[in-house]
């Protein structure tokens, strides 16, 4: 059906053309017939006039038997190419003078006729009487072509032109139609080709993406390799500080000197901790734990930390431009990013300066919150700017920086769905702008707000830790916080102790331990038995930390100090019925 319609549509134009041609031919035929009649009328009139002229001219010659003169008049008629024959007959119908073109015959004696105009067999016969003064002298007779040659030719040419033009029109239409169809087919083929090429392109793009991903991963691996050297160097320095300080502590009784040594050790530990935190952040792909926070508040809260980590000759000003919509992110990462930006600014201002942190909604788009960290330092060349977020890219001398700080900022920005940009000129400071997408989620209800500086609790703790050194350290801190504790070296042992004893006010467990059960499984097991049991997990591994966060247990990332421990214990909540002293 469809095909039929298409076929009809296809031949529609030719049908129209054929119809037009037929109409044209019909009109041409009618015109031809009408014209024919008119032509015959005209022809008869002209021939009659010519015969009349001949008759009147020849009258004298006929009257007085002047055959020569008569012949002259007859010959004069030859000028008309349509005249086939001409003759003068006397009153007795005997031939006096005549001429005939090839093939024409002249009868010597004419049929008596007077005044005749007659078309016969394609000829026109005209007879006119020759009279003078009322006397009949004879007849003048002409025989002409029924249709003048020139006219015949003209009509033939006209008809031929009409037919030829029509045929031409039809041909042009047909050719045009064919060309159109061909063009359509080509177009369809092109479209198919294009679609194919598009699919291929998409495939290639996907392949390229995969290849790029693989390249990034391999670059990361390479970076990790390079990192090992740098970190080992840093750690050796730190360990050197700690080990020498420990030796010196043993040998010195001077409290002042011991205090200095301890401070040095703590500083070294802090640097090491920062280093590992950055490494972990770098190796991690997903946010450790996301929370919906007010970025402004988070930044305000870091004021003291920032001021402490910078030098006295650097003035810090923080400007939070409200209102701000909440942002979902990893608070620890945010803090680290800010710290890295601050440290970067500090190192860019060896002679002091001003650090301005501004928090604001992006003017054109309140779907994003931006933190602008501006310094008045030495600035950067464009070449440095272009590489500033690359891992391990550093302008600092060996041992002063790992090259991970700003790459952490970059990684944090990207994993949070935002971005970070830098604007700088050499000698004119640098401005880093970190923008993060806002969320429609509600702010988390008081995330570890106002941690107690050193909350003192009283109770019994079960410490699960396989490393003796670490266990001892944590034990000291627990005691300092007012806990007595028992220690288990593995999860199964801890579970036995938990089952076989009275209630514990706190269970604090390492996550990665030898044995069939890890810390997280232990925590779950304990929660099953006693859902209100406060549990704190600790680990130095990022993957384990993420798992703990998902399971909803408070987490301590190693290394940690007393304030962090106290905060985690606070987050774990008091066991019901247990009195906690502030």
């Amino acid at each position, binding site marked *: 059906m469809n095909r039929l319609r298409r076929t009809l549509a296809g031949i529609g134009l030719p049908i129209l053309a054929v119809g037009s041609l037929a109409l044209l031919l019909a009109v041409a035929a009618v015109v031809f017939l009408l014209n024919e009649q008119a032509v015959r009328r005209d022809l008869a009139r002209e021939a009659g006039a010519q015969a009349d002229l001949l008759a009147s001219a020849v009258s004298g010659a006929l009257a007085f038997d002047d055959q020569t003169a008569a012949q002259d008049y007859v010959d004069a008629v030859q000028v008309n190419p349509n005249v086939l024959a001409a003759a003068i007959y006397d009153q007795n119908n005997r031939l006096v003078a005549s001429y005939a073109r090839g093939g024409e015959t002249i009868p010597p004696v004419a049929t008596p006729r007077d005044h005749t105009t007659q078309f016969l067999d394609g000829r026109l016969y005209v007879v006119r009487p020759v009279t*003078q003064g009322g*006397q009949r002298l004879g007849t003048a007779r002409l025989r002409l072509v029924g249709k003048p040659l020139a006219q015949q030719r003209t009509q033939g040419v006209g008809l031929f032109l009409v037919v030829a033009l029509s045929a031409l029109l039809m041909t042009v239409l047909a050719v045009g139609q064919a060309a159109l169809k061909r063009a359509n087919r080509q177009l369809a083929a092109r479209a198919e080709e294009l679609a194919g090429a598009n699919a291929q392109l998409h495939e290639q793009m996907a392949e390229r993406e995969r290849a790029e991903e693989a390249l990034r991963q391999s670059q990361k691996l390479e970076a990790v390799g390079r990192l090992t050297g740098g970190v080992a160097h840093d750690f050796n320095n730190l360990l050197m500080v700690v080990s020498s300080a420990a030796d010196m502590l043993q040998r010195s009784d001077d409290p002042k000197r011991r205090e200095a040594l301890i401070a040095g050790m703590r500083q070294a530990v802090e640097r090491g901790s920062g280093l590992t935190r950055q490494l972990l952040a770098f190796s991690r792909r997903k946010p450790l734990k996301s929370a919906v926070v007010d970025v402004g508040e988070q930044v305000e809260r870091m004021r003291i930390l920032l001021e402490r980590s910078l030098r006295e000759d650097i003035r810090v000003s923080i400007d939070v431009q409200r209102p701000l919509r909440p942002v979902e992110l990893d608070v620890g990462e945010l803090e680290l990013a800010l710290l890295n930006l601050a440290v970067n600014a500090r190192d860019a201002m060896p002679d002091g300066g001003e650090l301005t942190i501004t928090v604001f909604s992006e003017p054109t788009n309140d779907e994003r919150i931006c933190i602008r960290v501006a310094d008045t330092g030495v600035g950067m060349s464009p070449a440095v700017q272009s590489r500033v977020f690359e891992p391990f890219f550093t302008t600092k001398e060996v041992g002063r920086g790992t090259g991970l700080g700003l790459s952490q900022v970059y990684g944090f920005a990207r994993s949070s769905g935002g971005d970070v940009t830098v604007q700088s000129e050499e000698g004119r400071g640098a401005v880093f702008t970190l923008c993060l997408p806002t969320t429609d989620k509600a702010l988390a209800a008081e995330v570890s707000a106002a941690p107690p500086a050193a909350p003192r609790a009283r109770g019994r703790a079960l410490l699960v830790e396989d490393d003796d050194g670490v266990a001892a350290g944590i034990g000291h801190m627990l005691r300092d916080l007012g806990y007595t504790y028992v220690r288990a070296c593995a999860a199964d042992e801890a579970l036995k102790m938990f089952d076989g004893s009275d209630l514990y006010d706190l269970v604090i467990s390492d996550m990665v331990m030898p044995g069939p059960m890890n810390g997280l499984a232990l925590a779950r097991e304990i929660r099953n038995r006693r859902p209100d049991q406060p549990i704190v997990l600790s680990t130095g591994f990022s993957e384990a930390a993420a798992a703990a966060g998902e399971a909803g247990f408070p987490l301590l990332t190693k290394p940690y100090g007393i304030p962090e421990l106290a905060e985690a214990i606070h987050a774990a909540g008091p066991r019901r019925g247990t009195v906690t002293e502030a």
Partner: protein
Amino acid sequence: MISRGAFRVKALALALCLAHSAAVANTHLEQAVKANYLVRFTAFVEWPTAAFPADGSPLHICVAGADPFGQTLDRAAQGQTAWGHPITVRRVGSESLRGCHVAYLGRGYSLTAATNLPVLTVTDADVSGHRGAVHFVVVNSRVRFHIDQGQSQRAGLRISSRLLNLALSVRGAR
């Protein structure tokens, strides 16, 4: 049955007989042609209206002096008309040409008597060298004529150019 030789003799005799009668007929034919021409002239000449008493009144062809035509002219004119006038033949002898329209001047007729009348005078070289408005001559055994327009104009006649064209000569043109 007639023998072939006898047929030849008969045929020769017939031919001789015909040749004789042709010579006789030649003069006769000449006169017949002239008579015929006299009638024909009337068609190529226009007379003043005063020349006819009324429409349809006869046109007279007169033979003055000796009549060489006899019945030939009467036969030629019989039933003929010119310009609506029936043609009649008159023989006027030596009398005036008054009332005549065409006058053939035969032997023994003086032309002076016909000067101011609307008459087409026809003379004949056979008769005399004196010429009227039309003057018959025989050239190459054919009857031809000269025309003197001076005379025809004096007579108040108009001769058609078609007749003038056929004349051996036209004299006295204006």
